[in-house]
């Protein structure tokens, strides 16, 4: 009985919960049993958000047991570092290189790590680091970041990446066809950043 454990991490307002929800719906549509749980207190207010997504033949606890996450999808560099210990030693990390300093850092009480990506690589896990914001801006719209992130994880799932892509694009196809096209391109560019074959 094999369960896939995906950890999605970021900060309140970045779209972590939405991304996890889309992944969950894609897994459900593929026929898996699915559970998704958030560790998010007052997350809407800029705090840490992590979402645990588990799917497979039969999921018991919604919480990923410590050290058993297969894939980490991180929307922010330091947040990837904060939870990377929850990954298996051979886990895959897909990380947006964005650095978001909270007020306690920007006002000088604490320091932001110099190179969180290097620290992630030092754990020995496979790390795909990319600037999702730059990709989104290149496509003309910063808000496409979430779709870039979902594209990045799409080759690291046990079901075809097209199923995930379709879930995203279908949200726009009828209402706003031009946004369906933009999201499809964002997805492909995200995917190119983190090809499993790389």
């Amino acid at each position, binding site marked *: 009985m094999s369960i896939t454990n995906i950890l999605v991490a970021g900060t309140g307002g970045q779209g972590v919960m939405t991304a996890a929800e889309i992944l969950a719906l894609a897994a459900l549509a593929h026929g*898996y049993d699915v*559970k998704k749980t958030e560790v998010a207190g007052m997350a809407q207010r*800029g705090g840490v958000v992590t979402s645990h997504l588990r799917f497979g033949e039969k999921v018991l606890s919604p*919480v990923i047991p410590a050290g058993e996450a297969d894939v980490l999808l991180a929307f922010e560099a*330091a947040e990837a570092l904060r939870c990377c210990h929850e990954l298996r030693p051979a886990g895959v990390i897909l990380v947006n290189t964005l650095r978001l300093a909270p007020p306690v850092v920007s*006002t000088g*009480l604490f320091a932001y790590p110099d190179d969180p990506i290097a620290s992630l690589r030092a754990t020995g896990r496979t790390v795909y680091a990319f600037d999702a914001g730059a990709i989104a801006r290149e496509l003309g719209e910063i808000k496409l970041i979430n779709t870039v992130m979902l594209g990045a994880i799409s080759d690291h799932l046990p079901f075809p990446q097209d199923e995930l892509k379709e879930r995203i694009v279908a949200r726009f196809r009828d209402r706003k066809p031009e946004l369906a096209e933009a999201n499809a391109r964002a997805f492909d560019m995200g995917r190119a950043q983190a090809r499993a074959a790389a």
Partner: protein
Amino acid sequence: MTTAVKEAEDRLLLSGNEAVARAAWEAGVKVATSYPGTPATEILEAIALYPNLHAQFSVNEKVAMEVAIGAAMSGVRALCSMKHVGMNVAADAFMTYTLTGTKGGLVIVVADDVGLSSSQNEQDSRYWGRFGHMPMLEPADSQEAYEMTKAAFEISERFATPVILRATTRVCHVKAVAVVGERVEGPKAEFVPEAARWVMVPGNARNRLPLMAARDVALKAFTEETGLNRIDEGSDRRVGFVTSGPVATTLREVFPDAPIFKLGFSCPLPIERLRAFAATVDTLVVAEETEPLIEMEMKAAGIAVRGKEILPRFGELLPHVVGPAVRPLLGIAEPPAPAAPAKLFPRPPTLCPACPHLAVYHTLARLRKKVVIAGDIGCYSLGAGHPWGALDTCVSMGASMGVALGMDKARDEDDRDKAVLAVIGDSTFLHMGMQGLLDITYTGGNVTVLLMDNGTTGMTGGQNHPANGRDLKGAPAPKVDFARLVTALGVAPERVHVVDPYQLPVLDRTLRQEIATPGPSVIITNRPCTLIEAFERHQPYHTDEDACTGCGKCIDIGCPAISVARRETAVRKNGREVELAFARIDTAVCTGCGMCVNVCASEAIVRDETAAKEDCRP
């Protein structure tokens, strides 16, 4: 636990809250009530989307409970949902309604915030079942939340008792697969007068007590036979478990071969079945969130169990907690611990860019030495944090009023160097603040109240209330005028001020004037929450780097859109060294409220003319 996976079209991905709502609708509920509170809020929001029923957020949980009771007295099915602390507010009503017994099915859904994700305490609501002689059901996941909600209505009507469905955050907010059905309409409402039953004066209430005792006996028999209590078999009989709620899934995950007695109907306990189960295992461990309630009742019945001497008394019983506590009983060596998390800066929740509360706390932080600030429950509890540190107490809904009054009355004449302030939000004021303010005016308390009206119940995601002019579904509704309301409660009209909080100098001046004047006063701030429709977004500001002098005053506001671009040490003409902090505004999150423009003497904060685009997020 989730039943066998079926075909895709029957399977929905539902949170526990959504599953309760779906089941209540299918069960024919006619009236559903609540007051918003994490993690229960979405139950009512989800119910409100279904047809053929009335759903409402009441002003508080007690009123919500009474509305549900009135409906149930009339013979229809009713549901009342709330977070754990809401039960304290509602208890006055249901502790008597359990005595009258119900006519239509009444299900009280209480959501315990085990682990304190967004609450002021971690009380265990399972005590209410014992205290109120009410049966209690405890689902483990969405499918069970759905099935048990339906079962709860049947049990409620069969035994003429309110029934409590106790969920926890790890049920309410977990999305899982659930298979659902269709609605069955219930009977029409018909209230049948019966004073001996519905009028609980002592003479009548006394006669109900033996009937409630007889119900207890019937429920004791029921719990011994119901399929809601069941054994999940396991081949390794060295350690068996008794548990309820989502802990069952954790135990099965960590101990795949252990026998588990899973209590779905957990009050009253099926003591004889538990006794029989205990005889089938070498060691029996009770794993319960959070208090040792089952453990104590089993021990009182003479059944040997292990419980809180090996498991924690608070917090969630997650795999990494249960595993190390129980493995020694099995002689299993602890697997090597995963690497410790990286040491990093904290990222506490904070107020949003342009939040009107920023203005209040920025102002209060400047008056810090002159005031004691009694706080309340809402986003504005964050005012206690960095960088404002401008909140001294936070107890319960509406408590800012009473606590401030108590502080004022406790002090002597020579101990009045500080003003006493109470800080409260609009929804909290309507919930339980009005009564406290009435106490302040009635007793002539020297309290200045800051009523921060942001036009919504913000913390729980933006629910409408009686003072924002919209009903649950967003349709126009009667709107309470706070200035007139507090005047009617006895505050002198000249001591009531409505202030635009973005005008920092006006807020500061008004506050200083009111705390210097004896007697009750109310300052109402009137800018909306930035997360609701009423909030107007403007072109963002950015800093003109050439003009910024590094004074850092805009940074002190604590707006998350403003950060330090760079620091420098400068030497003033008088030889003093000063730390300079040059500001940067994140134009992607700035909403152009202009609060920071107020404090910038060098006019370095200017509009950014880049246009925003439409939302293209999935």
